[in-house]
């Protein structure tokens, strides 16, 4: 694998994560538990869509002049490189916020490293995104703590969300030859190296939330390299890509 090929894969991983998660979060619009949360979730989704435009925009450039829209709307499931966690359905507000928190924790640490990327374009995107994500993390950790330490029902729902999502955490830190290539070039950190910081952060917040981290270290994987996705991704793409697929070449 050349460095350029690895770079493209890295950019797709970043952009597909924000694309798919942004899509999931946007599904809440008009359905959140309270108006203030509706507005806050929309802000998160907007930030993620904006970041997608930057990551996939750069990926398209590297990949010979495609647009971010081409990559978002015209690839099939096997071309997506997001972690599996962002694909799973929202379920209740608790699972949505727990997923947001786990992703934000990884995302903020990742972006913190990418600010120092040897690639200026990556560093610039990370600089903008990291400010947004710092706020996402603040908000999602407050909500996880609030609901974990709230009523008996909210506690149980948050524990169930954590139990469900925990097997999807490991994939965010799985390193492969693409990551090695990026680390060697100083473009991006090796994900495995972020784990300790992540664990410290997540343990602190989940302790405040009175929640118990599952003991199993099993991790679902396959999203980052496209070898395996959840069944949910196809349905998500069916919605997201429908107009572009049904009316090829039209401009919107």
């Amino acid at each position, binding site marked *: 694998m050349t460095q350029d090929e690895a770079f493209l894969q890295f950019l797709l991983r970043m952009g597909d994560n924000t694309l798919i998660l942004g899509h999931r979060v946007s599904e809440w619009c008009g359905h959140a538990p*309270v*108006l*203030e949360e509706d*507005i*806050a979730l929309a802000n998160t989704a*907007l930030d993620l869509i*904006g970041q997608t435009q930057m990551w996939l925009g750069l990926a398209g450039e590297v990949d010979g002049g495609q647009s971010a829209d081409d990559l978002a709307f015209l690839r099939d499931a096997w071309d997506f490189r997001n972690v599996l966690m962002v694909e799973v359905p929202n379920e209740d507000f608790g699972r949505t916020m727990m997923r947001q928190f786990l992703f934000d924790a990884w995302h903020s640490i990742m972006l913190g490293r990418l600010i120092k990327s040897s690639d200026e374009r990556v560093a610039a995107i990370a600089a*903008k995104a990291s400010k947004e994500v710092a706020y996402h993390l603040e908000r999602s950790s*407050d909500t996880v703590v609030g609901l974990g330490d709230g009523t008996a029902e909210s506690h149980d729902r948050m524990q169930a969300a954590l139990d469900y999502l925990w097997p999807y955490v490991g994939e965010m830190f799985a390193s492969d030859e693409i990551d090695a290539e990026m680390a060697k070039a100083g473009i991006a950190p090796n994900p495995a190296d972020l784990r300790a910081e992540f664990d410290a952060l997540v343990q602190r917040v989940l302790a405040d939330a009175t929640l118990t981290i599952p003991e199993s270290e099993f991790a679902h994987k396959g999203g980052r390299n496209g070898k395996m996705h959840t069944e949910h991704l196809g349905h998500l793409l069916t919605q997201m890509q429908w107009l572009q697929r049904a009316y090829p070449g039209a401009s919107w």
Partner: protein
Amino acid sequence: MKNEWPLWEIFIRGQHGMSHRHVGSLHAPDAEMAIKNARDVYTRRNEGVSIWVVEANNISASSPSDKGPLYEPSESKVYRHPTFFDIPDEVGAM
């Protein structure tokens, strides 16, 4: 109403050197969440420099009067602003 989140009055300093200004109200379980909600609700088009929140029932009032606030663009969300959309002259004001 059982368990309704308290009402908070929101004050925002829009620019350095200006005083805080009442922009409206919202609901939140506590002061910290009220500040976060205020950021999401009342600074969608700009970055307020500073936010104050006061639980509404802690405010003693004589007779209020103030004009509504106007707010400034956020650089990254230009599409929120009408001028982002190019509307032909022929169709008139919009």
